[in-house]
């Protein structure tokens, strides 16, 4: 994207004199002035592509129409976004796209949230003058959490660009040429056979229903309706900060209580909070980090530093494919979802006197890679499948709508005890930098006996949306057990999106990384921008979701994981000690190398 500088110039759009900045495009200026120009291949997160051509406008003196998304403004430019030939071209292009878009709107998951449908309606496409194929041309690919129906694809390539630019995974690409073009993978492989990490960012960028998540709602309904089953649900921290968007509420609205109430009304027997195991993760992972540091500094033994977080399953898939040589740097902690799953069918079952076999463990996640993670063969340490079904935020919204509930009108309810009790440290797991912040709050206090020296416990350097953020904490006057850390400057870094993770990983691989601890989240903004979150997504939307998450943290009485009474109780009653035998059995795991193509 070109950077706009502050040199101002005058242009005219539809007869209106407007001020524009040098470097802006026609579309930028139009948007700022509430002049609607239709777009399909354009996306706020992505490089300009200029291929759908639906944003073509008339520019005085130009024989051809110019695409607003990628035409920079020049002084005295005169633009008409509504000339006869613009209207004709726009309609024709939409008709051409519709003629190749095969599928019923009424049975599509994106019905009423489809950009093609919206434009067709807005520009009054009453008939498509070109014949549509009578039958489906592509099989639906559904052997991974990402379902692809190429019959609905309009070749805008937003999925390709997000995979390439934001994630640098490059699992998907245009295949074939001309009318044979389709979006696919190398050698016609299916996604599960490629380096795809199932982050689902492609789904969030898809303007139509060509890319969707694999649906689990039917399975979950069946479980709920089975009286022999005890259905437990856990909800990730990022859900509460975004779910309302599915109900036409502007981004940034927290609906923790309404969500909890809705889950109860849907018929889940117990509603827990993944924040609980987020707190638990901090205890386990924090202990692991300090143990590694001790091994390195005191025992001088061969231990991999920096340590990487392991909460983000898209990131786990990525490191397995691309940096398998660094797997020993990865924390052995399972993600909060999987820790939860393992505890539900052991600790919770025992506590409640339930047969684990009768428990159905459901999670609501902002993530499609979580579906893959739950199906991993590693994730059966409870003796059962630790998490049976994973719903995305979008799927939960569909269930709430199917049940006829109006989310915003429901009265708040509380999570169930004990695994519904959590702290602000658990909540911020939903934002990039949150795991790091939570870890620092606890680790520093564990080592020094004092609170972190940041105002109001807010560790600002690791917050925000910069791709990579670094911070350091100097340990002074530690308790005797940690005396070896006296004066140590612990350096940490946070990366979100896999392209940023790659930069940090390359440093580690070259032996040049200055850090001790690195947090990686696969998705932009962290889980709040996950592939299972409401559509659309954009930098602004993610910022608002982040605000909601940090506000929730701010409102809570307990904001440090080690202060979570339910977690303390869990150690006393069941686990024993952090990183102890039982923890290792249930809460830790190891990952394995995968092919890198």
């Amino acid at each position: 994207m070109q950077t706009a500088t502050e040199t101002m110039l005058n242009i005219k759009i539809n007869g209106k004199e407007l001020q524009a900045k040098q470097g802006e495009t026609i579309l930028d200026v139009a948007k700022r002035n509430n002049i609607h120009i239709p777009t399909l291949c354009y996306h706020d997160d992505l490089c300009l592509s200029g291929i759908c051509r639906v944003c073509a406008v008339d520019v005085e003196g130009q024989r051809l129409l110019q695409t607003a998304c990628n035409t920079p403004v020049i002084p005295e430019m005169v633009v008409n976004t509504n000339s006869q030939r613009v209207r004709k071209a726009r309609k024709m292009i939409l008709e051409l796209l519709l003629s190749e878009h095969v599928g019923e709107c009424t049975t599509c998951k994106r019905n009423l949230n489809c950009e093609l449908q919206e434009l067709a309606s807005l520009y009054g496409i009453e008939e498509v003058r070109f014949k549509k194929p009578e039958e489906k041309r592509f099989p639906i690919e559904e052997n991974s959490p990402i379902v692809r129906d190429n019959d609905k694809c309009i070749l805008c390539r937003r999925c390709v660009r997000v995979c390439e630019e934001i994630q640098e995974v490059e699992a998907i690409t245009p295949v074939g040429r001309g009318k044979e073009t389709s979006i696919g993978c190398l050698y016609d492989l299916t996604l599960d056979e490629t380096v795809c990490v199932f982050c689902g960012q492609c789904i969030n960028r898809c303007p139509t229903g060509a890319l969707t998540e694999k649906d689990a709602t039917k399975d979950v309904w069946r479980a709920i309706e089975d009286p022999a089953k005890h259905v437990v649900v856990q909800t990730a921290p990022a859900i509460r900060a975004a779910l309302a968007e599915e109900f036409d509420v502007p981004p940034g609205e927290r609906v923790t209580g309404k969500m909890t109430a809705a889950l109860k009304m849907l018929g889940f027997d117990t509603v827990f909070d993944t924040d609980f195991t987020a707190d638990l993760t901090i205890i386990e992972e924090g202990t692991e980090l300090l143990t590694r540091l001790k091994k390195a500094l005191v025992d001088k033994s061969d231990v991999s530093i920096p340590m990487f977080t392991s909460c983000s399953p898209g990131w786990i898939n990525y490191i397995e494919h691309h940096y398998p040589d660094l797997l020993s740097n990865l924390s052995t902690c399972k993600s909060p979802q999987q820790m939860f799953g393992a505890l539900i069918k052991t600790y919770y079952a025992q506590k409640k006197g339930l047969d684990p076999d009768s428990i159905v463990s459901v999670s609501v996640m902002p993530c499609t890679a979580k579906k893959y993670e739950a199906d991993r063969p590693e994730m059966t340490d409870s003796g059962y499948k630790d998490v049976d079904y994973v719903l995305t935020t979008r799927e939960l919204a569909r269930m709430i709508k199917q049940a006829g509930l109006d989310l915003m009108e429901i009265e708040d309810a509380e999570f169930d005890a004990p695994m519904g009790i959590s702290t602000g440290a658990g909540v911020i797991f939903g934002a990039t930098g949150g795991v790091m912040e939570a870890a620092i709050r606890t680790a520093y206090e564990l080592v020094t006996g004092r609170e972190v020296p940041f105002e109001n416990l807010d560790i600002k350097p690791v917050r925000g949306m910069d791709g990579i953020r670094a911070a350091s904490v100097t340990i002074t006057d530690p308790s005797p057990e940690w005396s070896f850390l006296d004066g140590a400057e612990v350096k940490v870094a946070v990366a979100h999106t896999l392209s940023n993770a790659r930069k940090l990983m390359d440093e580690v691989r070259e032996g040049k990384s200055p850090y001790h601890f690195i947090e990686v989240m696969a998705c932009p903004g962290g889980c709040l921008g996950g592939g299972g979150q409401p559509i659309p997504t954009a930098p602004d939307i993610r910022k608002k979701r982040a605000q909601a998450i940090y506000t929730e943290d701010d409102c809570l009485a307990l904001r440090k994981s080690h202060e979570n009474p339910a977690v303390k109780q869990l150690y006393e009653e069941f686990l024993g000690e952090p990183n102890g035998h039982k923890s290792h059995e249930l809460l830790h795991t190891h990952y394995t190398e995968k092919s890198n193509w």
Partner: protein
Amino acid sequence: MQRSRLLSPICEYTELLNRAFSYQPQAIVELIKDSGLRGRGGAGFPTGLKWDFTAKAEGKKKYVICNADEGEPGTFKDRVLLLESTDKLIQGMTIAGYAVGSNYGIIYLRAEYKWMLNDLMNKTDEMKNRGYLGKNILGKDFDFDIEFRLNAGAYVCGEETALIESLEGKRGEARNKPPYPAQEGYLGYPTVINNVETFCNVPYIICHGAEEFKKFGTDKSCGTKLFSISGDCEAPGVYELDLGSKVQDMLDLVGSRNTKAVQIGGAGGATASEKDFDKPICYEGYPPGGSIMIFNKSRNMVHVLRNFMEFFEEESCGQCTPCREGTKRLTDAVIRIDRGEKLNDEEMKTLLELAEVMKITSKCGLGQTAANPFVYIYENFREDF
């Protein structure tokens, strides 16, 4: 009107290069501007201006690329130049390098011309050995070398930005403009891309000056041009003619009688019917690509059109909607017509509207011209429909 500037024997290297190096680089740019030379690939962009933009663009490196991806249906004139005027091409590229401040030349050769690659490489090696390419050419402290790259067979890679994408190892697809190659071209560096024939005109201009060059041609179409003439005529072949020559004169020259249609400028060019044969071939008249295809009265123009449309449908890169879907829809319709189906007025109206939309909204020259034969042939040869 028939000339032999381009096809004439070469200027001697030492003399030519010494003469070129006696100018300041910017003076060469000005000389080319003065000559009125326009790109010989078909679009006709003023060459001097292109060089000027590249010369003035900032970059750690610059590239001079020769577009030898001669893929326009019915054109084979660059083949003749590559075989018989290799020296002029090398000279032209070297002088372009000197003028714009580039030390790297790349000849992007059509995949189907792979058979001439060895000879071409021998030639550049020879010139390197003789000190006309490589380091410190003629002791003038100017380095310029030429390497070869092969196209993989896509027509669209003749479009300059698709060519660059292809050179970079990506799918051959047109880029957004701006930035133009002169600002950000190959690997992001300022790049001059010219057709084989454009470069081959440069030595003549250096040797004889701009005025002499302009002696032939018209005001806006200076010099001579090679035409690949094929089809229903007695003497098909490559001809060097003044720009501005009339269609009829050309037909007489090659012995074409009973002519029904002349396709000027390739598949996306114009289809002239008898009433238009007195028009000139130049930027003021029928834009001169390299290709002239002649069809006599025994030919059904719908068959011809079907051939063109199937070509475009096959060669559309598939990225932009109007070209990808438009070529497909037009081809489907033309196949139906060719099979004898009569389309109703409403359908024809839709197709003409589609043709117009393809022209004004497609991303690159391919899509912008792909509907031309449909419109021309429908307008000029309606009886065949």
